[in-house]
């Protein structure tokens, strides 16, 4: 089975990379981009029977720094 973990900076934490992407889009002529947030996607290949709670524990211990980042887990069967 696979799991996908999305890690994003929390709302309210300035994302300078997202801001730089927003400026770059603007200079390419894409108007109306009001905000860009950049994050990470981590794909995990897991043994059958692995549980979402194990993946959550992985996020808490390593994959995300919960001081500044939020995460979301998606199990993909």
């Amino acid at each position, binding site marked *: 089975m696979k799991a996908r973990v999305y890690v994003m900076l929390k709302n309210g*934490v300035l994302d300078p*990379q997202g801001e730089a992407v927003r400026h770059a889009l603007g200079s390419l002529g894409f108007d109306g981009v009001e905000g860009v947030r950049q994050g990470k996607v981590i794909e995990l290949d897991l043994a059958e029977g692995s549980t979402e709670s194990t993946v959550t524990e992985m996020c808490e211990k390593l994959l995300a*720094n919960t001081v500044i980042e939020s995460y979301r887990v998606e199990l993909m069967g």
Partner: protein
Amino acid sequence: MKAAVIVFPGSNCDRDMAVAFERAGADVTMVWHKDTALPQDVDIVGVPGGFSFGDYLRCGAIAANSPICQSVVSHAERGGYVLGICNGFQILTETGLLPGALRRNAGLKYICRTVELTVETADTAFTSGYSVGQSIHIPIAHHDGNYFVDDAKLAQLQDEGRIAFKYADNPNGSVADIAGVVSKNRRVLGMMPHPERAADEGHGGTDGVAMFRSLMDQLATA
């Protein structure tokens, strides 16, 4: 004073840190990240700068989970001293020994130059050789030195006098111009600037020497 300096794959300030400790009179042992124990009777552990594990995932995240870091955390919890510089500061926040996190610099550029710092507290073994409000010049060299803590934690750090150094002219977007903070028991210091790179006339400045000397004075008499 017995010092241990941790070496991770990708550490590059470990030897500079060891020399700074040695010049102050410490016995220094280098400790590999796969070791599980610190040398006996170590007074202070240095967590050096560099790019441990290539900064993969997040700066300091992999190093913070290496075998030796468990011993570093236990050492700190027993009241031992820990000094984390640059990547070492990032690692200490990842272990939870220090609050906050280091984000990408606000200007997105890697910054390598000497900056002016203001000493915010002299009430630590690290900073007792300085005076409050003193201006010192110390090099920085980082891409992810933009310190973040939430408002509540910031207020706590201010109330408890735990901000060790501030930037005179904020180079990286850090909250409240913070360049370094200490733990609640004041025995763990993390800072982005490199005092070990301002520890010899040949470095172009010696403002970092007072940190290693005052540690020696305080820990030799402890």
